[in-house]
């Protein structure tokens, strides 16, 4: 009797007798989905989200790749191979930039003669320039590699390369040019180092989830790292989507104080970074977010300081050198660091001054440095969590 009643109760509740079975299945599915949502929401809460921000070519994506190498399984063979077209593309793009750049200098510069490409390389230059301008690039063959190499060794190109900061010559130039033989090999598979240097402009958002494995393996902290493109675009439209991230990792390439933007050749890159930094600091969505400032590309900065004084950048115009060599590099670095500190405090509202703000010196290509730096970031964020929970 009872089961008859309960059966019929079901009949009464559902719209139609025919769909009775389907409905319970749907209900079960719906319940399952709800349960899953609830579980994931709970899990989500424990995931610390980190956002990589910074101007273009500041090293965000390199940091991203490093984290992947350090704390995930790294790049498998398929992924490494997937970078091959990117690396070849970089080679073509770069040599084209240098070639076109040398022509420009040959036309406009006072000492034009040193930028004139030698006769035997002229045709090669034109050919490579044409290839570099295409949408799709041909595979890098041995012949092409040799041609690129001979152009690279041309005195005019070397002179042009010395003025690379006036063009948009990427940092990986020297490395790829010196490795052409290997890159053009028929069985070439990119190495980790090659992949770290490969330059592709990030569009959209990429993310990875990882857990830093420390000495106590059960550290349990889970991070999700987001990398967004760095070039000028409608940042203000999407930035608020990142409200509630645990920390913003703001990357700055300190070596680019004498370079101009890809998007706007009249704008100094450091000034652009300064403006971006200040803009990000003022965003309401980051009022309580910790800020980790990565002063990146220290290795290039180190080499540049003896030759190019900091004051070429307007922001650093009051810089005065005190010594030479390594001490001077340290002094210059401290100066830059202080400028960013100043900017931070000038653009932080008094009641936000309590948020965590730390500066790290990084060389994103150096895995050891990134690992050590990230350990410190992890420690800081954990202490912050304990502090906010009132346990510290």
């Amino acid at each position, binding site marked *: 009797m009872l089961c008859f009643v309960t059966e019929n109760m079901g009949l009464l509740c559902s719209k139609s007798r025919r769909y009775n079975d389907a409905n319970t299945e749907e209900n079960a599915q719906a319940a399952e989905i709800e349960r899953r949502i609830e579980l994931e929401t709970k899990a989500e809460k424990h995931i610390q989200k980190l956002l990589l921000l910074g101007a273009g070519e500041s090293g965000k994506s390199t940091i991203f790749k490093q984290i992947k190498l350090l704390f995930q399984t790294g790049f498998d063979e398929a992924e490494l191979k997937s970078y091959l077209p990117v690396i070849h593309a970089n080679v073509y793009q770069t040599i084209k930039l240098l070639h076109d750049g040398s022509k420009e200098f040959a036309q406009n510069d006072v000492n034009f003669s040193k930028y004139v490409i030698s006769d035997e390389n002229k045709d090669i230059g034109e050919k490579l320039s044409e290839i570099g301008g295409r949408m799709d690039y041909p595979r890098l063959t041995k012949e092409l590699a040799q041609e690129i190499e001979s152009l690279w060794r041309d005195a005019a190109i070397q002179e042009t390369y010395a003025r690379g900061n006036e063009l948009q010559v990427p940092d990986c130039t020297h490395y790829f040019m010196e490795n052409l033989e290997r890159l053009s090999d028929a069985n070439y598979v990119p190495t980790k180092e090659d992949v770290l240097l490969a330059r592709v402009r990030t569009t959209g958002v990429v993310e990875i989830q990882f857990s830093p494995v420390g000495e106590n393996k059960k550290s349990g902290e889970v991070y999700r790292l987001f990398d967004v493109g760095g070039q000028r675009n409608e940042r203000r439209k999407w930035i608020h989507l990142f409200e509630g991230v645990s920390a913003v990792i703001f990357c700055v390439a300190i070596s680019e104080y004498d370079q101009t933007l890809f998007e706007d050749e009249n704008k100094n890159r450091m000034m652009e970074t300064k403006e971006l930094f200040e803009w990000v600091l003022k965003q309401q969505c980051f009022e309580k977010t910790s800020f980790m400032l990565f002063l990146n590309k220290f290795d290039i900065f180190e080499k540049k300081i003896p030759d190019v004084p900091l004051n070429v950048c307007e922001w650093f115009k009051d810089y005065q050198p005190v010594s030479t060599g390594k001490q001077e590099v*340290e002094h210059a670095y*401290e100066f830059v660091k202080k400028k960013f500190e100043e900017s931070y*405090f000038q653009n932080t509202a008094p009641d936000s*001054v*309590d948020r965590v703000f730390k500066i790290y010196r990084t060389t994103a290509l150096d895995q050891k440095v990134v690992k050590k730096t990230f350990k*410190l970031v992890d*420690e800081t964020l954990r202490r912050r969590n304990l502090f906010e929970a009132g346990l510290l």
Partner: protein
Amino acid sequence: MPMYQPSKRDMVVGFEGGGDGQILDLDTAVKDGVLGGVDGGVVGTGVGEKLDLRKMIQELDLCEVPTVFICPISLEPMQDPVTLCTGQTYERNNILKWFNLGHFTCPTTMQELWDDSITPNTTLYRLIYTWFSQKYLLMKKRSEDVQGRASELVETLKKVKGQARVHALKELHHVVAVHATARKSVIDGGGVSVLSSLLGPFTSHAVGSEVIGILVSLTLDSESKKNLMQPAKISLMVDILNEGSIETKINCTRLIESLIEEKDFRSEIISSHSLLVGLMRLVKDKRHSNGICPGLSLLRTVCFYKEVKILLVSIGAVSQLVELLSGMEHECLELALCVLDSLSSIPEGRVALKDCVSTIPIMVRLLMRISESCTQYALSILWSVCKLAPEECSSIAVDAGLAAKLLLVIQSGCNPILKQQAAELLKLCSLNYSDTIFISKCKLTRTIQ
């Protein structure tokens, strides 16, 4: 049922009344706690008179010495006990002084002495000597243990990393905090440079805070201080100051202050936003008031430099400090006023002081309230502010009761320069008023008028 009962006459272990004749040597007697002082441990080997009793008493500096060892006159342990005819024992020098003052009584029993001889109490002396010797040897051994441990830890730190490093540092921190001898052995063993080398751009908070905690309790020589003044190390100290517990914050503050005292100090190291913001945070901390004085002390030291003054004003420290003055303890007040006075020496500082509404009333209130130094600073600040905008400020000041206070200063026993300054300020303020109005504002009594 025992046939023989030990005599209860002497309730002392080891001495049996009657003829059992067990005689214990002094060391054993004392060791077993005859006088309830020594707890196990060291076996005294009947040490010869090599250890000087006076030295031992001084070094040990114990609070709990058996009462029978104490001279009733000086309440100090006796080094040369002598007994009077009444049977009472005193320190020789003290009882002789008593006699020299013309008294011929026994101080404790008040009896008139029938016999002026004083007998050296050799037995008591022996007991005192043995008791102190045992304590002394125990202390020495413990101290050596501690020194050994400290040296061991310094060696360990040269080798280990990670969690082991943190543990070693924590232990060393504890040892050094408790035992002065450990500190010496750390310094002698080259520990300072080992610790210094652990500070760098990649030092974790856990390691850094312990190292700083240890360094701050050691006396550092010039060389070590110079080493610690490297920009990267100072940066680390500033970071840890901003993030650490209150104890860590105070340690960082003290360490940085000790480094500044060194000559060849480059002021640009401390003209750092992070440092000044961190110090202000420390000073404003309502939960932990023990950080206020160290924070203010360092602020006062760094305010010596002009760049720092400008920076400090730019982060809004002036109004923050002024607002804090009302709730401060006296020691802190003087420091805070010194900082504000220092800031009033630059134009930006003066403007900030003037713009802060509470400045004038609080300064007026503080005159002649706390100490002469406080009055001096408050006066100096008032002078700076009133000089900047005489009409506006003097009326506020006078309304707050400045005139009466200034008169107090002039009439007080303060130093003449201060009185002179008070007089000048009074003159400045009175310029805008007619005599009668001004006097009424002074709220003076008839007689003074």
